[in-house]
Every structure is written in structure tokens, then in C-alpha cells.
């Protein structure tokens, strides 16, 4: 332990290291990864002895690579314009390495280049490999990294460490994710494996734990005695754009529900961990996933609704349907919308339904967790037989990050009509700055060796175990698509599904 690092007060310090990005010319690198690294550097969170190496197949010089990254930072960074003074020194820590992913020589050269960087920049042999590549390359790259001694065996060398960050999707279903896990665990220890789900890096998602476990008023009512149901929505107004080919393989269940939404479910529903360490937190999360009631035959038609958008209007402008998008099969049966009802069979959540919905081309971009509380007992304030609105706690993940509580209030005056009102907390208004991008936090955590905010293998497997039967059922039953217009809140079947339980979807 560092004798000068006061726990809880001093900023956590990162070891010197090199970050190698595989797929360095890809979209994610330019839009998210490099702007995140730049922000970390500007805020003094990167170690002084740091380097970033881009690994990709296209020929490019270090200078060309740096120029492209500068443009990406200027476009996508959350602080603009680019800080020229910082950039001039930072760019000297950025390098480019051209190689195919299956080329042994490329890895040999990489090893040599990293050693040179170690000696020049003092990065001490510590490595992070960020696999921003299609999943089919994961086993191959990891095997090569192992073959050329770029991955160190855990415990073999206390002076150096190596970690691998793996982008989603981690598998295509339960079997393929198990195969992938089997492939990589030949070379990687779980503690070296950082399965990234950028949702976990969002401030509001991290705040869920603080909100739940640092406020006694909420945690004491966070159970089936007080909560009627939970709605989790991940809505996007954008369509598929240039990701047609990718989406045709994935669909929204794999792209959003299996990872992001299941992570949100587990954070909302988990029991208090014994401490905030990675193992304790992830142990509790995985228990939630393991408690989700498996879907049975009746659920596939009645409690899991899939949809695909047709043409419609977004912000008043006409937009095409999914089947007309580029690189999409004109008869595609891939879902762009899914709604489902889950139950978590444990003491806390028995008989509380969790309604999940995710969709493309919905009216607005919004990710939200809404906790709807049970009605107040009695009929004191019921008006002409109508119930008053239930209390709702809405946790907005994005945009307008914040928390709102809907309560009922008497309208001033001699008579007593009751009106729902909102108490609204917004991060932006309160703290006056835009929260850090999720990738900033996650890359920094990987440098610190803290994998609390990364998915563990059993979390991934548990999630696939719940959803794989759905995928199998869908594969065997052809839907009638499209079934909702772009710019609406999804298919009417989803409205009926929740209405059959006497509830309605929230208008966000």
C-alpha cells in the first residue's frame, strides 16, 4: 500500500502503462476512446508515463494517425476546442502500428515497439489491450498476444501487469458466449478480463448504488411491499444509420437488452453488497440475474413483444422504415424494438413485474428507470371513484441526467383537487458541468485495475441464459414486420401487454 495515499482522500493513482487499441481506425476509437483518453490526460488522470498505440490493418504513419485523432478529438470531445498546449505534448505519446490481426510478425513487431516505448517513456511493461474489433477476432488476438508474451500470467510477475478490455457483444447466445469464454480463459485470468458495457460507466448508473445505499429513505421502501412495478426504457430516436449489416446480425435484444438493460436491472434490484469492491458488487448483481424467472412458452407470445419500425416521422421529418435502410434485408425479421415483463423470484421482488422496453426510432432519446410505487391505502383522496396517481421515482440515465419524484399535491384553495407534481434534480443544473463520458471512467478504472464496473463472465452467462430461449423462439416463428411507425412508442401489442396487467407505459 502506498504510505502517502490516504484512503478516501487522495485521488487514486494509476501505474505507468501502454494502452494498445485494436481496431484503431474504427468508428469507436475516433468517437469515444480517443476523446476519453484525451479528457483523462487533460484532467491529469493519466499516468505521466503513458502511451497509446493504435493497432490496425490500414497503412499509416504515426503523424497521420495523430492528425486523424486530433480531428476526432476536435469533433467528439465533450470539451471544445481542443487544448493545443496539452495536445502538443500528448500527441508525442501516441503511436500507430500496422498489422493484420492474424499476422505473427505484426505481434512480434508490436512486442518490440512496446519495449521501445517502455524504455523511452518509462511505461514499465504494463499493458492494456483494448479489443475494439468484431467479436470473431477476440480469440485470435488474445491467442497471439499470449503467444508473443504480451499477456502475463497472473501472479508470475509482480512488477508488471497486462489487462484486456473486450467490447460487446460477448457472444451471440448462451452457447457462443460459453465458447468464447472457453477460448479466452485459456490465456486470460478473469481478473485480467474487462468486459466493457459502457452503460456501467455512466455517472447516473454509478449513482444508482449511491442513491440506493447512501439514502436510508429509499432503501427502506425498495421492495415488493411498496413498489408496484419497475419500468426500464432505453429509447433512441435514431435509426440504424450505417450499422445495417451489424444490426442484421444482432437485433436490439442482443445489442441493448442482453447487456445494458440487464445491467440496469441488476443494479436496481441487487441487495446491498458487503463492500464496494468488485467481487462483492458483482456477486450481488449476478444473484439478481440468477433469480430472474425463466421464460416459459406462454411468455414468448404474451409477455415478450418484438417490433420493427416502418416509415414514419421523427421530429416532423419523414424517415424510412428499417427494411429500407442501407445494408438491410428488405424482408428482414430483425427486431428494432422489444418489450418484456420479467419477474425476479426473491424475497425483495416477489410478484413485482419489471417491464423493459428498448427501441430504435422512438419519439425521443431517453434512458430511464422508473419505480412506480403502490397506491396509498384508503380512499381519503379518491375523487369520484378515481384513484390518484401513484408516486413515481424516475431515474434519468440520459439525457438530462437526474432524478425526479412524482408526488401528489393539493392545489391551493378552499376545495381540494389533487394534482401530481414533480420534484426534479438535474445533474447539469446542480453541479454545473457535463458529466464525464462513460468511457473515461471505464478506461481509467482499467488502468487502476478496478473491474467493478465491468461485466464478469457469470453475469454475461446468466444474462444469455435468460434471453437465449427468446432468441430461439423468435428464430422459429416469423413475425409480421414492420409493426410500428417510426416516431411512435412502439407496437400496439406492447401497449396491450402492459395494459393486460392494468398498467401503462410511461410517456417520456
Amino acid at each position, binding site marked *: 500500500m502506498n504510505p502517502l495515499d490516504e484512503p478516501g482522500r487522495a485521488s487514486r493513482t494509476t501505474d505507468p502503462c501502454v494502452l494498445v487499441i485494436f481496431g484503431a481506425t474504427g468508428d469507436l476509437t475516433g468517437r469515444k476512446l480517443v476523446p476519453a483518453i484525451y479528457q483523462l490526460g487533460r484532467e491529469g488522470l493519466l499516468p505521466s508515463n503513458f502511451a497509446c498505440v493504435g493497432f490496425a490493418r490500414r497503412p499509416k504513419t504515426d503523424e497521420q494517425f495523430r492528425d486523424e485523432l486530433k480531428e476526432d478529438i476536435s469533433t467528439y470531445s465533450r470539451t471544445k476546442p481542443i487544448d493545443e498546449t496539452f495536445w502538443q505534448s500528448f500527441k508525442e505519446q501516441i503511436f500507430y502500428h500496422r498489422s493484420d490481426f492474424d499476422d505473427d510478425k505484426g505481434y512480434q513487431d508490436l512486442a518490440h515497439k512496446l519495449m521501445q516505448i517502455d524504455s523511452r517513456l518509462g511505461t514499465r511493461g504494463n499493458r492494456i489491450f483494448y479489443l475494439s474489433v468484431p467479436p470473431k477476432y477476440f480469440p485470435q488476438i488474445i491467442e497471439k498476444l499470449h503467444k508473443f508474451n504480451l499477456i502475463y500470467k497472473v501472479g508470475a510477475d509482480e512488477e508488471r501487469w497486462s489487462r484486456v478490455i473486450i467490447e460487446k457483444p460477448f457472444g451471440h447466445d448462451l452457447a457462443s458466449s460459453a465458447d468464447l469464454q472457453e477460448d479466452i480463459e485459456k490465456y486470460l485470468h478473469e481478473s485480467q478480463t474487462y468486459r466493457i458495457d459502457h452503460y456501467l460507466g455512466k455517472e447516473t448508473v454509478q449513482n444508482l448504488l449511491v442513491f440506493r445505499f447512501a439514502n436510508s429513505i429509499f432503501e427502506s421502501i425498495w421492495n415488493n411491499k411498496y413498489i408496484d412495478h419497475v419500468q426500464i426504457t432505453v429509447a433512441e*430516436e435514431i435509426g440504424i444509420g450505417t450499422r445495417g449489416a451489424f444490426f442484421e446480425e444482432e437485433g436490439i435484444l442482443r445489442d441493448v437488452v442482453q447487456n445494458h438493460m440487464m445491467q440496469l436491472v441488476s443494479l436496481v434490484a441487487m441487495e446491498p453488497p458487503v463492500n464496494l469492491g468488485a467481487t462483492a458488487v458483482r456477486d450481488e448483481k449476478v444473484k439478481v440475474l440468477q433469480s430472474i424467472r425463466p421464460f416459459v412458452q406462454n411468455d414468448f407470445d404474451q409477455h415478450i413483444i418484438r417490433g420493427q419500425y416502418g416509415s*414514419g*416521422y*421523427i*421530429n*416532423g*421529418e*419523414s424517415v424510412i422504415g428499417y427494411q429500407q435502410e442501407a445494408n438491410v434485408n428488405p424482408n428482414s425479421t430483425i427486431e428494432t424494438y422489444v418489450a418484456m415483463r420479467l419477474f425476479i423470484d426473491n424475497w425483495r421482488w416477489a410478484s413485482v413485474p419489471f417491464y423493459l422496453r428498448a427501441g430504435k426510432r422512438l*419519439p*425521443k432519446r431517453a434512458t430511464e428507470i422508473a419505480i412506480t410505487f403502490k397506491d396509498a391505502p384508503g380512499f381519503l383522496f379518491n*375523487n*369520484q*371513484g*378515481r384513484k*390518484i396517481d401513484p408516486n*413515481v421515482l*424516475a431515474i434519468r440515465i440520459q439525457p438530462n441526467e437526474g432524478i*425526479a419524484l*412524482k408526488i401528489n399535491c393539493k*392545489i391551493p384553495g378552499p*376545495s381540494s*383537487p*389533487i*394534482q*401530481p*407534481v*414533480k420534484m426534479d434534480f438535474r445533474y447539469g443544473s446542480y453541479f454545473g458541468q457535463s458529466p464525464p463520458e462513460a468511457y473515461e471512467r471505464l478506461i481509467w478504472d482499467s488502468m487502476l485495475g478496478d473491474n467493478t464496473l465491468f461485466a464478469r463472465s457469470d453475469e454475461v452467462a446468466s444474462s444469455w441464459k435468460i434471453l437465449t430461449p427468446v432468441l430461439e423462439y423468435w428464430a422459429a416463428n416469423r413475425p409480421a414486420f414492420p409493426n410500428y411507425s417510426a*416516431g*411512435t*412508442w412502439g407496437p400496439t401489442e406492447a401497449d396491450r401487454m402492459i395494459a393486460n396487467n392494468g398498467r401503462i407505459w*410511461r*410517456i*417520456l
Partner: protein
Amino acid sequence: MTTQQIVPPAQIESELLRIWDSLDQTRQMRASLFNLIVFNELSTRTDYIRNIVQKIIDTFPCRVLFVSHDPDPSKHYLKTAVSVIASKGTGSNVCDDIDIGVAGSEWERVPYVILPHLLPDLPVYLLWAEDPSHTHPLFQPLAKLSTRIIFDSESADHLTSFAQTLLNLKEQKGQDIADLNWARLEGWRDLLASTFDSKERIKDLNEIDELTITYNGRETEFFCHLKIQAMYLLALVSSRLGWSFQTFEKKKNHFHFSFDQSIRAKIESSFIQELPPGSILSMKISTKGQSHYHFAINPQQPHQATVNITMHDRCELPYRFILRKSLMGQSLVREIFLKGTSSFFVETLHQLQILDRETIC
């Protein structure tokens, strides 16, 4: 409070944010208790509808989504504009105003423009300022978004079909409904309920043999269906007292109704410049037991009614009754907040269908 900025729909929220940022130092508070969608056909009535909206905002700040449909078939457009409107009441409460002007087939886009701008967790009220018995393609999509629909029977061509449409919405679709003219009668409903509040008076109610309602026949650009409030009042009284309608006769400008038990009712007009068009001016009730009740609005103080009661054996001292919140807009605002549809209103609508067989309104 700020001038309208024409912006494309995609920039509505960002432009509102910009306006609010520019008001940062003015101590104005952005406030909203509910979403208010207003639909009207672009006409001379539009200013009148805007005036009602301003009255609502004066009492309760809300996010206004004001849709004006231009019926000119030669035009095709969709324009959106934003501004912020101040409450005249508190001064410091200011709310968002999103204006949507639409013509021709562009109406299709309107629900898609509205949907992203509804404030979550707050009720959505729809003020449908047109005749609901006329099919309009925007009605269903907007009604689907709404917690409650407020109509203006002044816009109805025929009161019978208006009542039928509202009843269908209520009874078949479970939609909460209200009507501005019903809301405007609130003072009179209170007056009658508080007058007939003892055993003796309730006995008189059950022995009514003649009822006369006088309304203000002053026609204006915005009000021409002047008999509606009087018809509502007659329908309310007759439905609550279980009168069974028998005959109707029109004599000059008077409308005569007869009910079972030899009960007669008359609706007539008078003209008072100072009072709102169509408003109830007076009501006379005579009973079989020789009791006479006379309620009359004081033209100089239109929120007060003078009540004269004469029994067969005595005269009571006249007194004044304050008609609560009968200012335009105030009654509407109360109606909005009284959740649920009044069961008396529903009964009244049923009765109206019977009384207005001759489509006098």
C-alpha cells in the same frame, strides 16, 4: 413574454433552452403543472382560444402545445415556433409555448411533433376547440395522448350530436371529458345546490311546476350558439329531478318544454351588453305550493346573483350570492383540475339529447 422564434421541430427543445438561458438573470421561474395541447382551426376564434389559454396560464403554469390547423385546401405546410409566456398572476412564473401551424396533408406529422415534447409524469390535457362530432384526422391521435379532453360546445353545430359524441367518448372509450360551457355554469350549479339545502326547500324542488331561464342573447363574433348554457341548466335540473320530457314548442324567441306532472319550462333571451354572451341572466322557479324563487345576475356586478324567495305564507329577505370564479378561464381551470368526469355532466348530456331533439342549439 418573448417573441415567437420559428424553428424546425428538431430544434424546439434547444431553442427553448436558449431562450431560458437568455432569461437567466430575470428571476423568472420556468414552471409547468401539466401539458396543455390546444387544437383549433385557424380562424377569428383563434385569438379567443389564445385568450382562454392565457387565463389558464395565469392560474396554473403549463407547457402549451398550440396547434392551429389552416383549413385552406390550397396550402400545405408545417411550421413550428417557440416562445415563453408569463403568467399575469404571479409574474415570476413563466412557461413554454410551442406553436404548431399546419395545413393540408401535413397534419399527419403533428402527433409526431408533439410526442417528444410532452413533459413526463405530468397530466396531458387536450383543449379541442372544434366540434368533436365532425371527424377530424387529428382528433384520435391527440385524444390517445390525453388524460382529459376539454371541449367547447360553442363550436358545435348541433348540441345533440355534440352530446352524443362526448357520451361515446366517455362511455365507450372511458375518456375523461369536460365542456367549457358546462364549466361556465359552475356558479349557477353552486347557487341552486346551496339554495335548495333544507328539507323544506327540497320539498319545493320536487313540487316545481314552472321554470323560466333567461340567457343573454348578445351575439358576438365568437359566440353565436347562445342558448347552450340555458339548455345545459334546464337539462341539469330536469335530469336531477327525474322529469320526463313530453313536448317542445317554439313561440317567437321563446322555447317551451313540457314534462310529466304538468311541469312547464321556458327558455327566453334578453340582451345585456355588459354581460357575457349566452350567460344565464336569471332563473325563476314556481312551485305547486305557491313558492317562488327568483335568481338574477346583477349586470353591474356580474359575479353576484340576487336571490328572492317568496313562500305562500312569507317573504324572505333578498340576499346576494357570489358566483365563484365565473370569470372566463377561471371556471375552465377549475374544471381541468377536478379530476374525472362529473357524473352530473354525463346525466346532463343524456338529458340534452332528449331536450334538443328539435336541434334548437
